[in-house]
């Protein structure tokens, strides 16, 4: 039986030859198995074929031992043969499924019987029935649409991830920058520098609460309060205790209020 693939390649399934008229190319003779695979593909044009189905049709049903790697090799050889004819993309591998052959096929002879699926009536006319064509043409369109949708979704997801990743990182950095110290009414107290973290103890909480009362911090409304402490000892042994309490209104553009409390303690007082 002879087929015309893509309108130009003459394929004779009985002797496994591929030829293009007036092209100057030599006739290609396919190996037996390769020829059978091509015939199977043509008979199931536009239909995704499961790897198991092909193995079963070409090997298992004949009592031969099938091999997935062997199938890959034969498909690869067929691809090369079709590429020599100028059509390298007629066979597409469907990952974790099998293959799909997509080409325009017409028959030169009408007497042979195409080997359709085992369940199909065997004496169907050689031309692929329109009903079958309609049925099989929808699948690749759907598959192609799904693939494109998946590719589009992946690209969008990656694009969004790349764009929003710095924001997520910044948010993480902001959280890491400050340490929640304690909560007093609606004021959330934070420590945001390492110097203060070193001296921050539970005793300091009492001091901060006392200072908060002294400077009349309004903790009846939500606010973030940052505490910075710095203890300096000069060369003569006098101590300068510098506390900075910054009261920032929660999610507001009202400027932060900064309260500096500086205490000078002389060496003698300190020793007491």
């Amino acid at each position, binding site marked *: 039986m002879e087929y015309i693939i893509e309108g130009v390649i003459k394929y004779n399934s009985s002797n496994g030859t591929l030829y293009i008229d007036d092209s100057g190319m030599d006739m290609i003779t396919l190996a037996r198995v390769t020829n059978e695979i091509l015939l199977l593909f043509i008979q199931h044009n536009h239909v995704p074929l499961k790897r198991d189905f092909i193995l079963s049709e070409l090997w298992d049903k004949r009592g031969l031992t099938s091999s997935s790697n062997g199938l890959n090799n034969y498909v690869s050889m067929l691809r090369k043969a079709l590429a020599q004819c100028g059509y390298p993309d007629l066979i597409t591998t469907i990952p974790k499924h099998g293959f799909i052959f997509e080409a325009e096929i017409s028959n030169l002879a009408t007497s042979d019987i195409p080997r359709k699926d085992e369940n199909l009536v065997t004496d169907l006319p050689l031309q692929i029935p329109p009903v079958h064509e309609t049925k099989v043409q929808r699948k690749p369109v759907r598959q192609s649409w799904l693939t494109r949708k998946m590719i589009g979704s992946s690209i969008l997801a990656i694009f969004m991830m790349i764009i929003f990743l710095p924001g997520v990182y910044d948010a993480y950095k902001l959280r890491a920058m*400050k340490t929640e110290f304690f909560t007093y009414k609606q004021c959330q107290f934070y420590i945001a520098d390492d110097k203060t973290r070193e001296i921050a103890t539970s005793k300091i909480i009492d001091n901060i609460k006392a200072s908060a009362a002294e400077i009349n911090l309004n903790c009846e409304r939500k606010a973030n309060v940052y505490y910075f402490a*710095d203890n300096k000892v000069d060369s003569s042994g006098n101590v300068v205790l510098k506390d900075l309490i910054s009261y920032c209104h929660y999610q507001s553009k009202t400027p*932060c209020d900064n309260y500096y409390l500086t205490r000078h303690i002389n060496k003698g007082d300190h020793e007491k």
Partner: protein
Amino acid sequence: MKNKMFLLMCLAAAVGLSVLYWGWSSRDGDKRFECRARVYTKLIANACDKTTTTDIFLSLHGDGKGDMLVSGTHSCSNTPLVELESTVNFTYSREGAYYSIHFEPRDPAVSKLFSVLKDDYIKIKFTNVEDNDYIVSSPIETLMMCTAD
């Protein structure tokens, strides 16, 4: 194969666009930055138990020039209240995480309101800790927290 190429090209385009976007969004060297703060100080057990209340508006114009508007009062327990308002112009440049700020000639009295202004040259850093709130610190100490406009 075509799908793979298409996917790769789209990925390359996405990465390229993202890099451009990051580059564009991170060029803060020429960004205008303005923030406001109120500073209260209370010195206990020094010569006069001095207290000050100061409103500060700090503006970096984005072109290497900026100004600081300082307005407030200061007093000791035994002296009358002194009210001051002054605008201090400065030039600045970015050096790593810090801004090097060089103050132009100014009223010396203004440093009594905000001690940072007693030096002609300072280095400060802005650290964002909340949506609009920044810690303003020198390499040695925290100066204040301000809220960006």
